[in-house]
């Protein structure tokens, strides 16, 4: 779609977007010791996938309900009681939509700050459009409260048009750029112990990539302990061979997502899905691997 291509090329947006990220850096770090807990909730670590799309769906659905009830309230020839009820429920649906929009904005900006290039530019436009729409919904809610029903209906309709355009961009970020999708690549399921590398070839602080059944795996050494994980971070496919182990956590080299070194569970976002992680053992100085995630949802797209 040409709109996405054009927006994705707007490199002049990078400067203001990094300025905005500096502000966000300050805001999030102002949360002090609760920063990681708050950002994990906002990213959707607890949910296993991004929280933002759920709130965005609720927001869009509430506004769509408002528009439908508005249409009912302005149709000619409807009974007065029906018009009154439709108007009242429309205002309530709009209120829910505004709250859901606020939630979608907070979760969206939390995810957006860790995006790159085209996704970042399209995401910025998506956010600005939603902010404008949100302002219109606020104005519409106020108009309705003050009895200016028709003006409120018109303003919501304009806002909804903007929301739909913006939702298209949001959908493109997910389905075309893969933002929020698991980008860890091919996941192996190893039912048997499989030898991959002599321990002596693996130095502490120098992770190594090995290939098993066509999938890349990364090995980290901490003393005699070896951790084996997938090749790419599930967030934006950062090469985990550039990552490191910090106090029992595998750290993504780009955005600092942290994963439990024994299970691959996310301890700190922006990643929301676990890092593929394998059991390891040493047999006669050889590192052997077994296990790996067998996620039925992924069968057919890369599980060996």
């Amino acid at each position, binding site marked *: 779609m040409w709109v996405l291509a054009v927006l994705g090329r707007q*490199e002049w947006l990078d400067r203001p977007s*990094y300025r905005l*990220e500096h502000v966000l*850096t300050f805001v*999030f*770090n*102002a*949360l*002090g*010791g609760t*920063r990681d807990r708050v950002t994990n909730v906002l990213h959707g670590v607890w949910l296993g996938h991004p929280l933002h799309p759920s709130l965005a769906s609720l927001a869009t659905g509430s506004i769509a309900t408002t528009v439908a009830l508005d249409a009912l309230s302005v149709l000619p020839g409807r009974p007065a009681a029906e018009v009154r009820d439709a108007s009242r429920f429309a205002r309530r649906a709009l209120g829910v939509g505004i709250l859901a929009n606020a939630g979608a904005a907070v979760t969206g900006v939390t995810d957006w*700050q*860790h995006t*790159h*290039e085209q996704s*970042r530019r399209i995401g910025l436009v998506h956010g600005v459009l939603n902010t404008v729409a949100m302002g219109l919904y606020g104005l519409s809610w106020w108009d309705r409260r003050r009895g200016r029903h028709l003006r409120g209906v018109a303003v919501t309709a304009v806002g909804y048009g903007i929301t739909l355009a913006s939702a298209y961009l949001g959908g493109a970020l997910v389905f075309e750029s893969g933002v929020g999708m698991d980008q860890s690549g091919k996941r192996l399921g190893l039912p048997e112990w499989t030898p991959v590398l002599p321990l002596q070839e693996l130095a502490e602080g120098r992770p190594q990539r090995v290939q098993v059944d066509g999938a890349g795996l990364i090995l980290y050494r901490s003393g005699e302990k070896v951790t084996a994980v997938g090749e790419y971070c599930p967030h934006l496919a*950062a090469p985990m061979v*550039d990552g*490191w182990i*910090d*106090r029992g956590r595998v*750290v993504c*080299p*780009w*955005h*600092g997502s942290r994963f439990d070194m024994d299970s691959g569970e996310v301890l700190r976002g922006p990643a929301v899905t676990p890092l593929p992680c394998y059991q390891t053992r040493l047999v006669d100085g050889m590192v052997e691997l077994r296990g790996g995630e067998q996620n039925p949802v992924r069968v057919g797209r890369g599980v060996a």
Partner: protein
Amino acid sequence: MNAYTVLQDHHKVLRGLVKKISSAPAASPERQEYLDELLVELDIHFRIEDDLYYPALSAASTLVAIAHAEHRQVIDQLAVLLRTPPGAPGYEDEWRSFATVLEAHADEEERDMIPAPPPVQLSDEELDTLGDQMASRIKELRDSTAHKLHVRGRKALMRAM
């Protein structure tokens, strides 16, 4: 001076300070002085990269985006370090985490962005001009009392959080 040399020299300054800090006792005044110096140099480093070096390499936009992400990770870990009291049991661990993330960023930058990868095309003259701009910006910021106060104020703010 060539931009690559300026950047590598400044990495050496940062690495030298990290080494001095690591070898000084945790709560010693000497260590805090080195840390203050590191914060000033780190701020200078990010400024010359964000304002001069990365824009010159904008054609390698994938690497520039990664570099920005790494800066963010460094700052986030710095915030954790600064709000941990130097006498606290976890301080050394937080310092090591910070030193690791900073070193990882410097290593990756030297591996991937020095020299500038294709499709970036920089002539020797352009590299010299860029290097001169970076060197003079470093000097200007090092000589600036306002910049030192700015960094100090931000440190106090981060510590208060």
